[in-house]
């Protein structure tokens, strides 16, 4: 009996042992694919793969993690990947979890930096001060414009007056051949079709920028300004990608996306009427005009709801990084400052290339001054 029981006991243990070994193998294999990647250069396509950082190298390497806004995510990921190529010691991973979650993680201290499309609110600043007994540091990194992208057969250069786009988002204008739209588009063949308006289904900084403008510019807009609002009309799609995809796939649709996404997906974008009554087509240059002459507040939380500049594309905003004034890990802070500095200078070209609005000289100077506070 004794013999029998021990032997089958061993057998049973072995079964469990194999199970554990298998699962361990899986966990280990999570790390192993790295090594071949270092040996063989990526065969095209994986432009953003930073996987070749020498994990064993150690010597002065910093691994930073950040989380937050989804609107600048393509730019940040590109910046950080490019920076990593130039400086293999620094690896920065950025999770595009959304501005709200970005601020939450920043306040909780689980990241090395946060990112948001809407500047910190007074109560969030107070929370940070209470926890870290210092002012939070928020620095704008880039700007962007929110554009009306549309899918309308045969209509190339749609122009929307204030009354037209306000009416569309408020659900007052429902047909493409509405006189309010037709007025500005003489000669265009506007169909007698229902306007399929597409908005964000998730909360987003893009929506914050968009509705901040609507609130300032449209008397018919009553839903207010926030990262998500109660939409009077339309279909919801997730993310800038979701809206762009839905517009692609739905004839007679219109929606709002960041200029960068509209550009990358080659969607048609409407010119809209600004405060001075001029029809302005979206572009990084026209977006940059929106910030010209605006007074920059001390916390760098510059928001322009409806620029008075006649050359400006009116729906433009900034996006911020949230940094800690002090940290236990000085090496990380130094590395982070270097990355930001690099992004605002060398990285400018990439920003323009992807359709973002680089900061002007004045803002850049202010950001660098603010960076000095990071220790």
């Amino acid at each position, binding site marked *: *009996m*004794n013999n029998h*029981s021990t032997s089958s006991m061993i057998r049973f243990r072995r079964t469990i042992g194999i199970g554990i070994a298998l699962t361990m193998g899986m966990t280990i294999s999570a790390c192993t694919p790295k090594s071949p990647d270092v040996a063989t250069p990526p065969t095209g396509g994986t432009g953003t793969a930073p996987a070749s950082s020498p994990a064993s190298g150690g010597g002065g390497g910093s691994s930073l993690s950040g989380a937050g806004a989804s609107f600048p995510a393509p730019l940040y990921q590109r910046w950080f990947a490019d920076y990593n190529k130039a400086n293999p010691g620094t690896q920065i991973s950025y999770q595009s*979890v*959304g*501005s*709200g*979650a970005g*601020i*939450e993680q920043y306040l909780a201290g689980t990241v090395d930096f946060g990112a948001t499309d809407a500047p910190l609110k007074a109560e969030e600043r107070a929370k940070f001060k209470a926890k870290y007994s210092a002012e939070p540091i928020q620095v704008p990194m880039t700007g962007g414009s929110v554009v009306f992208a549309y899918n309308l057969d045969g209509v190339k250069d749609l122009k929307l007056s204030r009354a037209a786009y306000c009416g569309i988002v408020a659900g007052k204008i429902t047909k493409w051949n509405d006189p309010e739209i037709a007025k500005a588009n003489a000669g265009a063949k506007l169909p007698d*079709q*229902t306007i*399929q308006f597409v908005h964000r*289904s*998730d*909360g*987003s900084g893009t929506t914050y920028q968009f509705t901040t403008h609507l609130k300032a510019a449209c008397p018919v807009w009553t*839903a*207010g*300004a*926030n*990262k*998500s*609002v*109660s*939409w009077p009309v*339309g*279909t*919801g*799609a*997730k993310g800038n990608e979701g809206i762009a995809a*839905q517009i692609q*796939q*739905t004839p007679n*649709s219109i929606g709002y996306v960041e200029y960068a996404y509209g550009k990358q997906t080659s969607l048609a974008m409407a010119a809209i009427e600004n405060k001075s009554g001029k029809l302005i087509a979206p572009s990084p240059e026209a977006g940059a005009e929106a910030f010209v002459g605006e007074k920059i507040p001390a916390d760098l939380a510059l928001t322009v709801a409806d620029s008075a500049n006649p050359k400006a594309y009116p729906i433009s905003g900034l996006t911020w990084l949230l940094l800690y004034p002090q940290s236990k890990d000085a090496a990380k802070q130094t590395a982070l400052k270097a990355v930001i500095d690099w992004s605002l200078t060398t990285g400018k070209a990439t920003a323009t290339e992807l359709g973002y609005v680089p900061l002007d000289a004045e803002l850049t100077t202010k950001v660098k001054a603010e960076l000095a506070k990071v220790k």
Partner: protein
Amino acid sequence: MTSPSPSSKEGLLEASTRFNPVRALDQNFRRLTLGLAISVGAILLWIAYSLLIIAIPAIQAFGLGFLVDSTWDPVKNIYGALPHVYGTVLSSLLALIFAVPLGVGVSIFLTENFLQQKILRPIAFIIELLAAVPSVVYGLWGLFVFLPAIKPLLQGLHNFFGWIPFFSTEPGGRQLFGASLVLAIMILPTIIAISRDTLTSLPPKLRQGAYGLGATRWETIVLVLLPAALSGIVGSVMLALGRALGETMALAMLVGNANTVNISWLAPASTLSSLIANQFGEASGLQKSSLFYEALILMVLTLLVNVLAQALVSRFQQVE
């Protein structure tokens, strides 16, 4: 362990009063399994508790009125679940309307020897496989294959039956009706599998008796077999309903995510789970709390349906 204690012969569960390391191991093993068994229930309570604790601010703010309020306004911080309860229930019911007759029809086809088993077996296998296909794959298919394919059909519905309120709006790319049809396809394998099991498990006496009394094949099916299998079929339908109510991904991708109550089925809508999937990431404060409140409603809804389904299925098993 060297010599078996005499009391162990008396039976598996008789406890001895004498201390003995073998017996102690035995007792502790039993206690361990007992503890884990009870914690299955504890997990359920824990799930409900973990939802409740985050939902409390919303429950305090809106009470039961949450269920009938159709506002979802993050600007004013006022939330109501009506559009989502409406979307959830309506999409599930529409899905059932399509899936139940089809599912029962197919299960009859698979059990009543219309064709040879050689042909039926692969069909049955495909259906089993489809029950395991993840819902996100159904969503992918719905987005790129199914919705574009039925677009003209829905447009036709609107053109000819636009006077009926249910079809009164122009169908957009994504809307409740198309999403419900995909949902119907998703729950079809569940209905087929359980209905088929029920029909095959009926005692052969029933068939023999009915044929013996001169009933045709179809009279046997309609008058004898289906009534006998009814509670099992209803149980399968309830289980499918439970799955439809809780379904997330396919709906989040297809339903259009509009937080409004619209009488038209061709308008975009949203469901409890699709709203959570969409808004959870960026929500904070009362909005996040309201999302957990919605999750709680969803849990209660599916709990009721599932308990009812279990009761029906077990009643059937007793009859058997």
